[in-house]
């Protein structure tokens, strides 16, 4: 018999925390507000651990229905939760990293206004993300999907009095919405053809269909789902919101835009693997989008000067890797990279926040330098994360990235093109991460002593003098994440894959033919691994050369490259392109058509004209009320004459 794990509690605990902090938090003192937030988030994490402990005893997939939601004819969607290895991994990542970031935020946001509001929003985000991860049908997942978009909007625009922050929040929400449109159409197709949105039923229906070569229903659904994922996970062409989202506080960037929300797209694609495996065209699109995004974002990241923007582009690039993995059929490798990425990217953001906090709000790397002696703990943890993301063994990122590259090369859906671009992107990743590392921590300190202006994503500068290490409440999560960045990959891709196998049982024959070629795989695996290690070292070497040894070289190279460098520096002018292609026509169209045409000339005009008409009529009629009694008498007589005439006429008819 299936034990009742009370899965519904996991999302609802943070929701309770959000409600308490949101409704009553104004009266709470800071310790109380943080205690409420941490307690509920920690409780969710504890429950996740408890479930993990019992996991082997469960029959999978484990489903719990809480309440009926929609019963419309034969269509049914309930509030039901779904637990299998995939959702367990996501659950642990979300609650674990989320909890650490909550702790970190207590320190980071201590001197900010709206403290309780921040934690209310953070808990609200946790609620939606957990709903997304644990949902057992696409509709409930969509609620979580939309909700994390909302929480992202609220948190990016947390300092809403700042125009750029408010605009960034809007941009994030709108671009997300475009992706959601694709997702919705995919859901409609599913309802139309499968009659249900429950995972179990959809996947059963899909399993009975064959593989679609060329286009068809499954390809359409897959492509539309990918549109949704591209919006949520910031892939081409819907990635533009993520760099702007750095306007939010740094813990927000760490939680939402590194570890959890942006990975929702990857989770969704992985969850829908049954559909994708039967639509090779969609798989190819997924892999291509992922690979191109990885390369594209990495090239932009090379030239950025704001430390958070470098990390933002790095996130986009790493998400591209995850989609590349899903696109070549290695779904579990994509999830593996998701997990390690949560560790090291979350750590990178938190450490960047610690750096920013230390130097009083400055975010431009050109004004940093030589900080490794002044903030040692931050330095060592950030080093661990940088090594992890660059793919150095034995850190976490090496295992996951290497597994992805290997699958890209050998999988029947993959090709050496993906692999080559992936290796080059790994080289670029290593390069720009170590560039960041050298610029921030080595050399001479190039900043002002006390910067008084507050920057995007930075807390208000406080006046304890000089560069100082962050308080312990911020350092402890850094250390924990650093340990995870080091050891997180040691579980090994094979064991991870076996753990996730029940979630990714595959009915497609193509996957099974990959197994027999195991022997020759071992040799090429070694060769490929060494190539990726060489790429990582090459990136480190180049960065060392350009930013440590000969710091004047980058400037010369930039000038030599001229226009190309300018283009990359300006992010290939994509934002400007979108503004001209989409934003401006939309705004102009709505101004002239909707505002002038309909709102002003139809709706307002109707009201104004009816008022005008009433006035004209009453203007004419007011002559009846002249105050002159004899004219009243005249009107009475006239009226009476009409009535009498009528009656006489009726009488004589």
């Amino acid at each position: 018999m299936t034990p009742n794990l009370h899965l519904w509690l996991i999302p609802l605990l943070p929701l309770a925390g959000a409600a308490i902090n949101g409704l009553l938090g104004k009266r709470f003192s800071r310790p109380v507000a943080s205690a409420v937030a941490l307690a509920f988030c920690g409780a969710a994490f504890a429950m996740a651990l408890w479930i993990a402990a019992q996991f082997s005893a469960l029959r999978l997939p484990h489903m719990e229905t809480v309440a009926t939601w929609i019963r419309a004819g034969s269509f049914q969607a309930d509030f039901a939760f779904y637990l299998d290895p995939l959702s367990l991994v996501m659950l642990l990542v979300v609650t674990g990293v989320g909890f650490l970031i909550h702790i970190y935020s207590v320190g980071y946001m201590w001197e900010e206004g709206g403290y309780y509001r921040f934690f209310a929003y953070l808990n609200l985000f946790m609620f939606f993300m957990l709903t997304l991860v644990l949902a057992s049908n696409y509709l409930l997942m969509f609620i979580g999907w939309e909700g994390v978009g909302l929480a992202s909007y609220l948190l990016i625009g947390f300092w809403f009095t700042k125009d750029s922050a408010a605009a960034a929040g809007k941009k994030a929400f709108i671009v997300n919405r475009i992706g959601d449109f694709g997702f919705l159409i995919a859901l409609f197709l599913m309802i139309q053809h499968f009659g249900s949105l429950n995972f179990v039923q959809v996947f059963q229906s899909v399993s009975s269909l064959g593989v679609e070569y060329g286009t068809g229903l499954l390809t359409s659904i897959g492509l539309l789902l990918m549109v949704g994922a591209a919006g949520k996970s910031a892939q081409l062409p819907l990635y533009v919101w993520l760099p702007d989202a750095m306007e939010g506080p740094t813990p927000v960037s760490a939680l939402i835009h590194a570890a959890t929300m942006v990975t929702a797209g990857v989770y969704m694609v992985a969850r829908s693997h049954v559909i994708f495996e039967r639509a090779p065209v969609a798989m190819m699109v997924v892999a291509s989008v992922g690979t191109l995004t990885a390369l594209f974002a990495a090239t932009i990241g090379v030239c950025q000067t704001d430390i958070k923007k470098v990390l933002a582009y790095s996130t986009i690039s790493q998400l591209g890797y995850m989609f590349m993995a899903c696109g070549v059929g290695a779904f579990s490798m994509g999830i593996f990279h998701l997990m390690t990425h949560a560790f090291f990217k979350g750590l990178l953001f938190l450490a960047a926040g610690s750096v920013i906090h230390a130097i009083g709000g400055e975010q431009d790397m050109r004004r940093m330098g030589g900080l490794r002696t002044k903030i040692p703990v931050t330095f060592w943890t950030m080093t661990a994360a940088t090594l992890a993301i660059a793919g150095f063994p034995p850190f976490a990122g090496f295992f996951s990235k290497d597994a992805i590259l290997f699958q890209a090369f050998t999988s029947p859906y993959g090709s050496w093109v993906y692999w080559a671009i992936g290796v080059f992107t790994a080289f670029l990743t290593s390069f720009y991460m170590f560039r960041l590392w050298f610029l921030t921590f080595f050399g001479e300190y190039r900043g002002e002593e006390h910067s008084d202006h507050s920057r995007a994503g930075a807390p208000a500068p406080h006046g304890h003098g000089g560069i100082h290490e962050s308080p312990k409440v911020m350092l402890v999560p850094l250390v924990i994440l650093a340990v995870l960045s080091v050891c997180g990959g040691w579980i090994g891709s094979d064991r991870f894959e076996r753990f996730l196998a029940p979630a990714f049982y595959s009915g497609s024959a193509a996957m099974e033919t990959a197994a027999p070629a195991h022997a020759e795989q071992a040799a090429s695996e070694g060769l490929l691994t060494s190539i990726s290690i060489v790429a990582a070292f090459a990136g480190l070497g180049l960065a060392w050369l350009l930013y440590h040894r000969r710091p004047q070289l980058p400037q010369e190279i930039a000038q030599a490259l001229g226009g190309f460098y300018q283009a990359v520096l300006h992010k290939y002018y994509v934002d400007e392109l979108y503004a001209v292609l989409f934003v401006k026509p939309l705004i102009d169209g709505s101004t002239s058509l909707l505002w002038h045409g309909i709102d002003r000339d139809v709706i307002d005009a109707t009201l104004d004209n009816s008022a005008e008409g009433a006035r004209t009529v009453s203007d004419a009629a007011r002559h009846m009320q002249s105050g002159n009694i004899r004219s009243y008498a005249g009107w009475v007589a006239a009226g009476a004459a009409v009535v009498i005439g009528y009656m006489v006429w009726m009488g004589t008819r």
Partner: protein
Amino acid sequence: MMLHLVIFSVFGIICVAAAVNLLVQRHPINSALSLVVVMGSLAVEFLLLGAEFVAAVQVIVYAGAVMVLFVFVIMLLNAGEEERTSASRVALLFGIPGMLVGSLLMAWVLLERSGTRAVAVGALPGPPKTIGWLLFHDYLLPFEITSVLILIAIMGAVVLASRQASARQTRREG
């Protein structure tokens, strides 16, 4: 029968002449007295139709009380002759001929096409007893309501005409 017609015509002409006189006279007291004549001749017409009680009531109540009230008020307010103003010329030009035309038209319609029989003298006797019976049986409700109406009219007249506004006058005088 001839007598019937003669009496009818004589008093009818007196009636109309007095009504026109009411319109023509400029001093309201003359108009009031003309109206008394109208009511008197109407009482005779009522008698011709056999409504003796109504005729008596007409003379006693209408001519004897209401018109006396009018005369009292005219004398109380010391109403004088009307002045001529230009506004009445327009009405005179259009109103009188219009009214003449209208009434002639109506008279023609009534005389030519009414299809009514002749009415004999005293055709419907209206003794007080029968009328009283009707009043207190079939028309009891309107009767009672009318008495309430009279009560209200009394109170209204007393309140409206009382000398509250005289405070202003005494202040002005004193």
